[in-house]
């Protein structure tokens, strides 16, 4: 039993800080290793209790582990996130005010992209740098974007478009819902924010699914391929995200 908070938890945390976000498989493996290192009896069954104990302590420093799903492949992931209400202030310790201004512009471009594309081309992203005061040169903007990718705030696709990472969605959900209320979409199945997935072909129908949620939903025995909201045929070909048209 991992009842008391101790070195097992601390080891797990120390390993998590650098990673920030990892798959549940990786988390369970880390848990096993942390138990082994501290000679604590390991039981997969205790994993949830273990994470709960961690969160209990982490709340004292306004952090927590949140569980979610990777929008791209549906994998269960755990992320170590900051939870304090002042969403922007928390970035202030990691980036300079000007860098944050740049990030917020990119965020806005991504969220407000036409046709629910939830992504921005690197050309448009780089154009933002010189518009800021003080300016961020294109070269600096390029480096900064790479830093956002390295820090797991943004994802850069093979075609060079930037979109929100699972970490960004998890950590900035408060800010996203508040500042971009009219743009943020929720998945009809899991109610989490969706920026990559499928939409109903009816123009003003609100139904949206993550790809993995659509799979779950339409694989359920008697759900024929109809939109859960307006009942038109669900094509699975009307997309949200980079491939949106």
């Amino acid at each position, binding site marked *: 039993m991992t009842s008391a908070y101790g070195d097992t938890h601390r080891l797990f945390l120390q390993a998590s*800080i650098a990673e920030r976000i990892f798959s549940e498989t990786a988390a369970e493996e880390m848990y096993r290793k942390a138990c082994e290192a501290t000679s604590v009896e390991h039981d997969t069954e205790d994993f949830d209790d273990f994470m709960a104990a961690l969160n209990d302590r982490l709340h004292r420093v306004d952090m927590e582990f949140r569980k979610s799903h990777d929008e791209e492949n549906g994998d269960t992931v755990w992320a170590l996130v900051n939870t304090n209400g002042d969403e922007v202030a928390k970035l*202030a310790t990691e980036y300079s005010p000007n860098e944050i201004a740049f990030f917020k512009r990119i965020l806005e471009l991504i969220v407000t992209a036409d046709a629910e594309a939830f992504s921005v081309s690197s050309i448009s992203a780089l154009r933002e740098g010189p518009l800021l005061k003080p300016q961020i040169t294109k070269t600096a903007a390029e480096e900064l974007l790479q830093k956002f990718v390295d820090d797991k705030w943004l994802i850069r696709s093979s075609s060079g478009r930037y979109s929100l990472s699972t970490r960004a969605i998890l950590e900035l959900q408060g800010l996203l819902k508040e500042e971009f209320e009219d743009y943020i979409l929720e998945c009809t199945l899991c109610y989490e924010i969706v920026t990559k997935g499928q939409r109903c072909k009816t123009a003003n129908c609100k139904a949206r699914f993550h790809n993995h949620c659509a799979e779950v939903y339409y694989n359920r025995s008697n759900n024929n391929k109809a939109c859960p909201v307006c009942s038109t045929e669900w094509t699975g070909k009307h997309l949200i995200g980079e491939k949106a048209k």
Partner: protein
Amino acid sequence: MLTEEEFERKVKDVVRLALCSELRRTPMRREDILKKVLVNHPRAYNQVMEAADTRLREVFGMTIAELPTKERKNVIGSTAARRAAANKDKPTTYVKSYMLKNIIAQEHRQPEMINWKNDEPAMGLLMVILSLILVHGRVLTDDQLKHYFRRLYLTEDHEVFGNISEAVNTFVKQGYLDRVKLASSDSSQSDKDHYEYYCGPRAKVEIKESSMIGFIQTILGGVSLENLSKQIERASGTELRDE
């Protein structure tokens, strides 16, 4: 005076700042804490730091360690030493800075749990440089360092370590190495600056000299640790630090 709520906020901010700085391996400077976190409440500094440290210890198994001062102050001929000598009467204003130190018992640590990403080769290179500095009486000139790099076939664009000069610059920036510019003795050569390398403050906190000896022993093989330590002490003319 800070309200209880404000105090709590500041403590959490210091914790966050400490974790962020650590992740980037940059020191957390007193100035940053004052400017970014405390803002109008510099007097709360000690109390906030203490509370943040308690929380870091309890939750993360890490403590806020003050970075040791640089050795360069005592170096004769270095620009820093000259400046210090010139300002003899004035107290030296040196910036306090901190890093996080792991306090989980050594036998409980599990290094393979931590994803080092691309850091592992760099840490190997660093250990080599630090060991060379140590056996040289804790100081190495850039010419000596370059000479060793050549002998070790560490060319500028190494396939594992990448650009060596850049790697060294990064170590300096991260506080693993301390680089001091030497005052040029010969004015005709003033176009080329000379430097000396020392074990940096972060390295002093993170890496014990005894583990450097252990590292050297692993490479040499077949030498007893005690003999090696003695030999190094004799060769370098310094006594090994034992914390």
